[in-house]
């Protein structure tokens, strides 16, 4: 352990802030994943996990930044990289998945809008 880290307990406000945002982010992720189980069709289910990919990741990033910044006496911004990465990649995955699902539903003759003729 490097000596420029706080070894003992952190100030109480930092701990409360960290704990609050950690629980909030985990609750967002849990609600999103529960919607994955609960909602009836694929096209409704695909909306649910984005709650964990946006609000959950943001809240846990804030918790991480607060905790490690107070502990190391300097601004800790590594976790923002993860948020940026997820913010860039989650929509790409969702769009690909949505296109695949639409394609497969059309092949099965499901009740989806027809393809734009191009």
């Amino acid at each position, binding site marked *: 352990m490097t000596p420029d880290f706080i070894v003992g*307990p952190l100030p109480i406000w930092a701990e409360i802030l960290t*704990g*609050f945002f*950690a629980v909030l*982010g985990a609750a967002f992720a849990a609600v999103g994943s529960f919607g994955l189980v609960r909602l009836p069709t694929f096209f409704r289910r695909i909306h649910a996990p984005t709650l964990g990919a946006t609000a959950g990741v943001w809240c*846990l990033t804030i918790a991480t930044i607060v905790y490690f910044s107070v502990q190391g006496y300097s601004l800790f911004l590594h976790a923002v990289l993860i948020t940026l990465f997820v913010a860039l*990649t989650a929509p790409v*995955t969702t769009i*690909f998945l949505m296109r695949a699902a639409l394609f*497969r539903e059309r092949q099965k003759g499901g009740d989806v809008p027809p393809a734009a003729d191009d």
Partner: protein
Amino acid sequence: MTPILFWALKGALFLLAVAMLCAVWRLLIGPSAQDRVMALDCLYINGMLMMLVLGINYTSNVYFEAAMLIALFGFVSSTALAKFLLRGEVIE
């Protein structure tokens, strides 16, 4: 670490475990292939969040690299699987 943060982190880990179980449930019963791919993507995100909470819990920077790697592999695998569902092959 005071009891406030200790129990908050344990609660967050419990909530994330519940979230991962929900995603695994959808992964197992999902009626179509795209349901399973979506559940796998959600499972990756939840696992990455759990890595962040564990990093706070153990006061270790190593968990960020793990979280970053999980996010990276989750994106690549989900995109490849969705592409496979769309075309029948990954790289054309």
